[in-house]
C-alpha cells in the first residue's frame, strides 16, 4: 500500500504546485500626484499667461534657470521628469525649445499654443543645404520663434492657454475666461501703444542686436536689420566692419538691444551715430516684475527714444 501512496502523493503535490503558480500581481503602488493640476511651460510668456489665467487653481512651473535663453536651453533628465508628470505642457511652437523634439512627453498633454496661427509664422531661411544618402537635399533652417513680440500673437497664445486650461478644469472655465479678458485688454493696450510708436518711427532704418524681433518688425512695419551681437559683450573688429557696411546701405540711428549693451559698444555705436535702446523679449522670467511690467519698460524705452512730436 505504501508503494501505491507514493505516486499518488507526488501527483497531488505536482497538482498543488501547478495550481499555486497561477497569476499573482503585485499590488499597485500609489503614483505621485499633484495637489492641483500642474502646468509646465517652455518659456516665460506662456508661464505668465498660465499664471494670469489659471491663478491659484493650477500650479505653473517654468524650470529654466534665470541665466539661460529658454529657446536654446536643454533641461536635465530630472527636469524632463517634471514635464512628463505635468497635466499640461505649454509649447510655444515655431520650433521654439528644440529639445522638446528630442525628449519623450505625453502627446495628449502637449499644447502647441501657436498651432492656430502656424501658417502665419515667419520662416528663417538657411541657404546652405546638404545631402547624404537617399534623403536628398535638405537644410536645417527653421522658423522665427519670438512670436509673442507680436501682441496679436501673444493674445492667440493666451487664448490657447485659456482653452487648454478650460479643458483641464471645465468647472473653472468662467473664471479663466474673465481673467483672460483682463489679460487680453492689457495686451491690446500694449499693441495699440506699440502701433502708436511704430507710426512715429515710420520708415526710418533700425538695427536689431539679434534676429529675434521678426514678429515685432512685421506687426509694426519696422524697417529693421538684424545683427548677431550679444548684449554685454564687446563686438570684435570683424563685427564692427560688418556694421559699417550695413550702415552704408541702411543708415540706422537706433539699435534695439535684447539687454543692456556693453558700455564700450554703446559708446562706439554713438560715435557712429547709432543710439541704443533696450527692448527685452522677456523669454525668461525677469529678476523683478513680470511679463507685462517688462513690456511696459520696453514701451517706455521706445517712447523716450521716439517721443511724440511737440
Amino acid at each position, binding site marked *: 500500500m505504501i508503494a501505491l501512496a507514493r505516486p499518488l502523493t507526488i*501527483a497531488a503535490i505536482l497538482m498543488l504546485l501547478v495550481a499555486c503558480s497561477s497569476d499573482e500581481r503585485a499590488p499597485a503602488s500609489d503614483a505621485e500626484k499633484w495637489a492641483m493640476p500642474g502646468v509646465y511651460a517652455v518659456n516665460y510668456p506662456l508661464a505668465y499667461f498660465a499664471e494670469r489665467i489659471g491663478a491659484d487653481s493650477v500650479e505653473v512651473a517654468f524650470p529654466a534657470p534665470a541665466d539661460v535663453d529658454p529657446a536654446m536651453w536643454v533641461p536635465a533628465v530630472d527636469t*524632463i521628469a517634471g514635464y512628463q508628470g505635468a497635466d499640461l505642457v505649454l509649447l510655444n511652437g515655431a520650433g521654439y525649445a528644440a529639445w522638446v523634439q*528630442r525628449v519623450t512627453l505625453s*502627446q*495628449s498633454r502637449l499644447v502647441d499654443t501657436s498651432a492656430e496661427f502656424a501658417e502665419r509664422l515667419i520662416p528663417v531661411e538657411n541657404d546652405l543645404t546638404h545631402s547624404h544618402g537617399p534623403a536628398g537635399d535638405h537644410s536645417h533652417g527653421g522658423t522665427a520663434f519670438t512670436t509673442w513680440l507680436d501682441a496679436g500673437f501673444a493674445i492667440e497664445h493666451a487664448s490657447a492657454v485659456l482653452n487648454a486650461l478650460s*479643458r483641464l478644469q471645465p468647472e473653472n472655465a468662467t473664471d479663466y475666461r474673465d481673467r483672460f479678458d483682463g489679460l487680453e485688454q492689457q495686451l491690446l493696450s500694449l499693441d495699440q501703444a506699440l502701433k502708436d510708436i511704430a507710426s512715429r518711427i515710420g520708415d526710418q532704418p533700425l538695427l536689431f542686436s539679434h534676429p529675434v524681433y521678426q514678429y515685432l518688425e512685421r506687426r509694426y512695419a519696422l524697417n529693421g536689420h538684424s545683427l548677431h551681437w550679444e548684449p554685454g559683450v564687446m563686438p570684435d573688429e570683424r563685427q564692427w566692419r560688418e556694421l559699417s557696411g550695413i550702415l552704408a546701405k541702411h543708415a540706422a540711428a537706433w539699435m534695439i538691444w535684447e539687454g543692456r549693451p556693453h558700455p564700450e559698444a554703446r559708446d562706439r555705436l554713438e560715435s557712429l551715430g547709432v543710439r541704443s535702446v533696450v527692448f527685452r523679449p522677456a523669454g525668461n522670467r525677469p529678476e523683478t516684475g513680470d511679463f507685462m511690467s517688462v513690456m511696459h519698460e520696453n514701451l517706455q524705452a521706445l517712447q523716450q527714444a521716439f517721443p511724440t512730436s511737440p
Partner: protein
Amino acid sequence: MRDVLYLAWRYLVYNRLKTVILVTSITLIIYLPVGLNVVVEQSGEHLTARAEATPLLVGAKGSPLELALNSLYFSLDFPELTDYSEVTAITDSELATAIPLYVRFRSRSQPIVGTSLDYFEFRDFEFASGRPMAVLGECVVGAVAAETLGVGIGDAVTSSPETVFNLAGVYPLRMKVAGVLAKTYTSDDEAIFVDVKTAWIIQGLGHGHQDLASPDAAASVLDRSDDNIVANAALVQYNEITADNADTFHFHGDLSGYPLTAVVAVPDDEKSGVILRGRYADEDANSQIVRPVTVIDELLDTILTIQQFIVAAVIIVGLATVATAALVFMLSLRLRRREIDTMLKIGGSRPRVASMLLAEVAIVIVLSAMLASVITLLTWRFGPGIIESFVLA
C-alpha cells in the same frame, strides 16, 4: 479492503507495460477534450481581455486582424502603415486620446514598440526599477524582455536590422535602458518601449551626423558649393544617441507624414467613441477604425469551430478506446482464469476476488484521471502562451 487494493496494485505493477498502455490511453482520452477546452477558453480569455482593454484602433486600410494582432500582441507581421497625421486628427477631434504605435522593429526576438508616454498611463504600467524614457535613444523594457535579453538599468539594447543582406539599409541603434517594467502578464512584458521618434531614428528617418559645415567633416564632403554640401559615404552617422551628440539628431520634413502601424484611440466616453467610428465609416477613406474585441471575437469564433470538429473526433476515438479498454479487461479475465481459480481454491471468496479485479480497473482509471488533471493544469498554466505564440507567429 487494504489487502484487496494491495493485490490489485501489485498485479498492475507486475504487468507494468499493460498498465502503462492502459493509463496512457485513458489519460489521453480524458485529457484531449478537457485540455482542448481549457486551452481554447483560456486563450480566448487572454486574447479577449487584452482586446477589451483596448477600445479602438485606427490604422491604414487593410487586414483588421493584422492591425489588431500587431497592436495588441506585437506580432511579427505589421499591417499597412498609416502616418502621424492620424494622431493629430484624432487629438484635434477632442473625442479621444490618440496613442501612436509603431511596432515594426525588433531587438533579437523582442518587439520594439515606438509609442508615447500616454501608452504607459493607458496600460497602467508599474516600474520594477528605473523611470520612463526621457530622451531619444532611451528605452523601457518589459519584465520578460529584461530577463530574456539579460539587461537592466544602464545597459543597452540594440535594434536588429530588418534585413541582414541590405548593406545600405538601416544601421542598428544602441538604446540605453532607462527603466524595467513590473510584470503585467500580457504581451507588454515581452516588449521594448521607445519614443516613437526613436523608432523613426531606427528606421533612418531621423538621424544625427557631423556638422557638414565644420572643418572636422571635411573628409566626408564630396562636393561643396555656396548653397549646398554633398556628403560621401564616410560621413559619420551616429548609431547611439548620447548627451554629446543628441542635439545633432534631427528629422527632415513634416513629422505628420512619418509612419505608424496604428493609433490607439481611447474615447472620452461611449458617445465620443461612436462619433469617432462614424468618421471612419467612409469606405473610400484610406484609414480604418476597428474595435479589437470584435476582431478577436471573430478569430475566436473560427478557433471554436475548429475546436468543435476536434472534440467530435476525439469523442469518437474515445469511444473506440473505451471499447478497446473493456476488451482488454475482458480478455485479461480469460487469460487469468487459472489465477482466479487458484485464489478461490486457497480460500478467497468470490466477492473479494471480484473486488480485487474491480480495484485494478479503478486504480487504472484514478491514475489516468490524476495524470490527465496534472496535464490539464499544466495546460491551463502554460497553454495560452503557447497557443498565442502560434497564433501570433
